């Protein structure tokens, strides 16, 4: 069984991510039984059959829009966002919009080129689950969650900017003048 990082701990995971192979189309691909995270296009093509499953997940490619899931959000046990390359930053805004604008509150998982040094940012925009690239040690990757202990700006994880959360120091020299 695969291991993933979920809610800041390493856990076993029994979901399968379905990726279309050559000659498979969203319409003709057979979605295996069990817990499967299907591509958005497969969901859209086979919605009638898939929506009756007890547990189903969907994943978005970095060039797909989270708004496409509007109205369906409650149907998924997990939504994943794929990072084709870790340097493709679109997934960060997809996650933010899923959480902050579409109100998704279930598991949001980063899949694909998921590496230690991006984990801190990923968790801030709303990801709570991470499937690291298989060649990496997950015990190392998880360390990335705790690179920083303080942040300046709002994002999904932190609704208030630092300046609204704490009393910050003004210039003492100026106030004594």
């Amino acid at each position, binding site marked *: 069984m695969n291991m993933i990082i979920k809610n800041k701990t390493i856990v076993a995971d029994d979901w399968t991510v379905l990726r279309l192979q050559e000659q498979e189309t969203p319409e003709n691909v057979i979605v295996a039984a069990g817990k499967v995270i299907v591509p958005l296009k497969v969901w859209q093509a086979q919605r009638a059959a898939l929506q009756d499953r007890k547990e189903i997940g969907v994943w978005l490619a970095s060039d797909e829009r989270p708004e496409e899931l509007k109205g369906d959000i409650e149907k998924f046990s997990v939504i994943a966002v794929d990072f084709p390359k870790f*340097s493709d930053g679109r997934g960060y805004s997809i996650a933010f919009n899923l959480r902050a604008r579409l109100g998704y509150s279930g598991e949001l998982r980063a899949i694909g080129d998921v590496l230690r040094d991006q984990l801190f940012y990923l968790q801030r925009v709303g990801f709570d689950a991470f499937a690291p690239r298989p060649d990496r040690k997950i015990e190392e990757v998880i360390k990335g969650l705790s690179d920083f202990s303080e942040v300046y700006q709002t994002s999904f994880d932190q609704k208030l900017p630092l300046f609204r959360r704490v009393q910050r120091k003004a210039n003492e020299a*100026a106030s004594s003048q």
Partner: protein
Amino acid sequence: MYHYDEYDQQIVDERVRQYRDQVRRRLSGELTEQEFLPLRLQNGLYMQIHGYMLRIAVPYGLISSQQMRMFAHIARKYDRGYGHFTTRQNIQFNWLKLQDTPDILADLASVQMHGIQTSGNCVRNITSDEFAGVAQDEVVDPRPYAEILRQWSTFHPEFAYLPRKFKIAISGGKEDRAAIYAHDIGLAAIKNAQGEAGFRVVVGGGLGRTPVIGSVIREFVPWQHILTYVESILRIYNQYGRRDNKYKARIKILVKALGIDEFKRQVEADWADLKDGPGTLTGEEINRVASFFTDPAYETLPDHDSKLNEFKADSRSFSNWLSRNVKPHRIPGYAIVVLSLKKPGNAPGDATAEQMDFVADLADRYSCGELRITHKQNLVLADVRQKDLISLWQEASAQELTTPNIGMLTDIISCPGAEFCTLANARSIPLAKLIAERFENLDYLYDIGEITLNISGCVNACGQHHIGNIGITGVEKKDHDEWYQVSIGGAEGNDSSISKIIGPSFTFDQVPEVIERLIHVYLRERFEAESFIDTVRRIGHAPFKEHVYATGFAAQEDEADGKHVVLPAQYEVPYYSPRF
């Protein structure tokens, strides 16, 4: 200037710790170079021709004497005794070892500095008016907003992997001294009819391969909303900016493709959701940050020092310096002094460790312990008493920092060029030296008057050649020789324009003569007191082009066979360089 509190310090210290571990993992092979690349870039570390180059942020160009001394220390301990001030108000060290860089960043953190986001596809160091707080035409002091934007953009989780780099500039004077129309976002701090502060927001400007003057997206965004408005611009760009072609990935291409109206519609739809939310700036926060930028205890002084006039009459050098390098201050009896890093024969923007220590000392004694780096690659002492100008000038002259050429032809803006940079097609610094030496004669220089000359070694335009009155660009031709395009008619500021190429490109040795010919046409055609740029705008390119190409150029010996080979770097590559 701004001082870190415990939160700022903690964030920067944790960054050093994170980076130290990344370097360890790179050296052990745990991280591939491809994976390490964006991590080191977001700490300002490049791999250049000779080795690693570190770009250190000087936020909005403001620096204390203590921080300047740290640069001198780094130059001595880790580098070759000098540094290079850049067009983005930063400093670069060219000869570093990877193994040393975590220690350098730790040294910097000890004086509240860092290299965070000075490179990479993220929000870069925010640049501003070098005369902020002291300019006579200031409407709103941009520095508190620049600092607030610095903090907001530092490690913004959503915008660390944008399609391409992202540059924000902010100005607060009637005259734009921050080239805001040449930035991804330009902010002009202004006041509305009710006297409330806010920003005219300009988006989609930029230089590089496709130079574009930015478009106004909103005439007035009240100061409370500036962070959320900028956030919405970034979010639209992050989602829709092109990622398939790095030359079409800047926000200017997206704004052009959508049109400013549609781009604005998308931004404001996103913003509707943020406006008045918790990201809105508070009066308490702006007051807190502004408390670091209050006036020093200015003395009441007469505005014209009689001793100054006497000395001026006696010394032509001093009088030249006074009229070229000293700018009016908003407080009577004070002056703004620009220390020139453009002595002909020197590399534009370079300063030695001795000069850095020296200017730090000058700042302590004459200007409240602070300095500014200008985007024209000079240094500024912003709060000098007029009665101190003579002694300051005498001391600074001994360190070759008083060349009276600010705003003149030899005040050349230049990128490091092909001797250092892996992107460049041609050398910049030796060309800048050659041109400066040709125009060294002060009478001639002053007769030519106000003019800007910018050199970039390639189309990426670090030397901002598109907004120089004369722009020079290193271009690649099929045979990989060194060629330069010359363009005229560019300008920055309120009347920004993009320069146009005059014709076929030139060899290294021909360029100074080309500049001479351009100047010849200007001197022939100008009306009285008309500047070079105004003459170009009035008479157009044709007379310049005609004269430049009318006659041939004297052949150089090494050009006999028609080849103009790029000279190999004149520097010895150190053994520890990955290029060794």
